[in-house]
């Protein structure tokens, strides 16, 4: 329980910091006025708009107003889109989440087995090749990968779409591209682009962890017990390898969200990243503020998921129940 309380405290802290950063943005970034008036507006018009937005109030007043609104989930109306920020984010969030999830699934689903395999076959040529390729994967800038994939698979071969999300299906308030052929096709290039770096990273990490676990005493003891190699590698080593890997996968999720900004720019993927890069360009502060808080929230949710995964896998974390039975 105290474990969860501590997590909650941390989440609140993160949210507070996020709001502060969001407010700092609100106060200091860009002059939104120019984005809201046309080219024919006079300087007097501009002043009027500035007053209407409350940009002339003292900072403290603006901060108080910001916090008050944020607590009610109200981040105001986007300067750029003229719609409530919460609605805009809600509309775009599914696209980014699906993209991030799928790329993480690709990265984890391939990265962990490859990492384990290369760890178990340290000397083999294929393992060395895979390692070298993974280094290239870590070293390649995401934007270059995206451009190259478009050139090859969209323009060159014409197999996969170069932009957008394809046909989406609405499930309640959620739109998903996972249920249509065109939606799935559209997902391929962006999620691969986003996943390459993570794949390489996770593979290398899984390999390093696996190697480390394979040197532990309990694996040595398991060998001394005459267990079959498969049992040692998969029943014992792999499960112990997964713990740190899960932590990293959780942490990397934040990075995937950030890198989705680049991928969404390259592929015109209609998600939050595209929204936020526009928000930065147009100094759309309410939108930025909402985005920041959402990122912090996502972080909290992912952390919770990681904690739950730990509880599921690692009996040592289920402390309280076990304590009653200890000698």
């Amino acid at each position, binding site marked *: 329980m105290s474990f969860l309380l501590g997590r909650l405290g941390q989440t609140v802290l993160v949210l507070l910091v996020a709001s502060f950063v969001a407010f700092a943005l609100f106060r200091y970034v*860009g*002059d*939104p006025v*120019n984005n809201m*008036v*046309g080219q*024919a*507006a*006079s*300087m*007097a018009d501009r002043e009027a708009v500035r007053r*209407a*937005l409350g940009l002339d109030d003292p900072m403290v007043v603006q901060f108080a107003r910001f916090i008050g609104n944020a607590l*009610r*989930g*109200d981040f105001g*109306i*986007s300067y*750029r*889109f*003229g*719609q*409530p920020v*919460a609605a805009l984010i*809600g509309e*775009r*969030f*599914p696209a980014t989440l699906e993209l991030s999830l799928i790329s993480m699934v690709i990265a984890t689903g391939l990265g962990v087995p490859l990492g384990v395999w290369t760890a178990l076959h340290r000397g083999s040529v294929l393992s060395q090749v895979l390692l070298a390729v993974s280094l290239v994967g870590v070293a390649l800038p995401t934007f270059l990968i995206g*451009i190259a994939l*478009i*050139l090859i698979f*969209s*323009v060159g071969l*014409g197999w996969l779409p170069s*932009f*957008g*999300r394809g*046909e*989406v*299906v*609405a*499930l*309640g*308030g*959620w*739109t998903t591209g996972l249920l*249509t052929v065109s939606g799935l096709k559209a997902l391929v290039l962006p999620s691969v682009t986003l996943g390459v770096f993570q794949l390489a990273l996770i593979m290398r990490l899984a390999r390093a962890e696996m190697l480390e676990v394979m040197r532990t005493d309990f694996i040595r003891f398991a060998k001394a017990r005459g267990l079959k190699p498969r049992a040692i590698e998969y029943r014992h080593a792999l499960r112990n390898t997964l713990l740190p890997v899960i932590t990293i996968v959780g942490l990397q999720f934040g990075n995937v969200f950030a890198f989705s900004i680049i991928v969404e*720019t*390259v*592929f*015109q993927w*209609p998600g939050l990243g*595209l929204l936020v890069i*526009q928000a930065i*360009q147009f*100094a759309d502060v309410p939108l930025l503020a*909402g985005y920041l*808080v*959402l990122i912090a*929230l996502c972080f909290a949710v992912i952390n919770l998921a990681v904690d739950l995964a730990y509880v599921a896998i690692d009996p040592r974390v289920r402390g309280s129940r076990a304590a009653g039975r200890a000698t």
Partner: protein
Amino acid sequence: MRLTLLVSTALTALLVAAAPAAAQAPAPTAPEKVFRYAYRVDPASLDPHALAETFTLSWLGQVYEPLVGRGKNLELVPALAEKWEQVDPTTWRFHLRKGVKFADGTPFTADDVVFSLQRVKKDGSDMAYTVASVTDIKKVDDHTVDLVMAKPNPILPVQITSTYIMSKDWAEKNGATAPASVKAKVENFASTNANGTGAFKIDTRQAGVRTVLVPNPNWWGDKTSNVTKVIFTPIQADATRVAALLSGEVDMVYPVPQQDAARIDGSGNAKVLKGAELRTMFLNMDQKRDELHTSDVKGKNPFKDKRVRQAIYQAIDMEAIKDRIMGGTSHVAGTMIAPGINGYDAKLDSRTAPYDPKAAKQLLTDAGYPDGFSFTMDCSNDRYVNDERICQAIVGMLGRVGLKVNLNAQTRSKYFEKVLARDTSFAMLGWQPLSYDAHSTLQDTMNTPEGKIGTYNIGNYSNPKIDELTQKIEVEVDPAKRNALIFEAMMLSKDDYSHIPLHQAGIAWGVRKGVNAVLRSDDSLELKWVTLD
């Protein structure tokens, strides 16, 4: 928190939702003619009076209509008004088209015109300037409306070609009687929905992602287009946009970066339509401060010296910019208005002085700057075609005559904030009169700044003679006399090197084979003229 709630409900919805409803359910009874096209951005709002921004207005022109429209060569054509006349010097009478219906079926009448123009004048409207001269809007009968002005305004029909008419009933029923205003933080039904008299109507729309349009069955006009469905997508990244055209995912993209034109033409399944913009790019020099605040010259302002301005003019090789940066598609400008703008005269449109770095250096020496001087140049990097590259080229050219220019290229919002606050010594700007009339160029970019006048005269150039001529042009009814006045004013500016006109950028649309579109020099795609083979 609402956001949490939103996210969690969305998640729940995903997990438990039963019946997936297909967003797009094409039912191909007749062969569908789908036209898919992409532009760099999405229209900012669907409210036709919310934002005076060229693309938004152009795009909304497919759904909404003005009283007076523009033809394929930008000539005035009847739209919702069949004809218009000046019944006296201060009254314009518009005879409305009969039998017109809005997309929702309600008939179009004079009440809608009165309502819409009043709405345009309300707080929050960004289009008020188009009817600023109108003091009264009178319904004469169901199909006649009078616009009354305090003083004669000969160009009113020209000014209102983007002033769109909404349905009074629809607006009242949906609480959209005032313009959606990002300024007052109010949005309304009209910013996300539309009901116009135009050739197309909106089927579905997700802002910033995708908008589907279908032909408006109630449209009054000549049905040239055989398109049955239009899918519009904003694609911001140039490379992705071109890739989408080349891979056949869209039928048309614009703008096409000039350097990609050859590739598209050579692809065999698409071609590039080319034209020139109506927007003139030009340089502004601060001619007001007594000392340039970004320069190493202290105690005086070199730009106040006409020889310095001329030196800069002669140091810039506009032809090289055209060839090397604009891919040969731009039109080198000799004056501040483009061909196609009312008041344009080819006699204005030649270089005032030749490109001649030696002469420029001599002029600088004569002016007392044999070793040149330094200053900062402001430039946008995402507003105009190749803006940053043009500025970089200019910095290089000025460097060759000894002027040390620091380039400050930034995103449009920051750029405009800075230069509109006159926090600049030297800046590049583009201007396209929304009315396609030289008066706007004179009033907004060349007149002495005061109140609503001269807002975009970034260099604060002041010439009382030009100010006076501008006022005369505003009220002169006789076209010939009016054009003579415009000519005179433009010549004054040229002789004075008040601004340095550079060019009108080329317009390039990438069009797939089998798609026929009309390239208009205001860069506006009119869906009603699009046909598919």
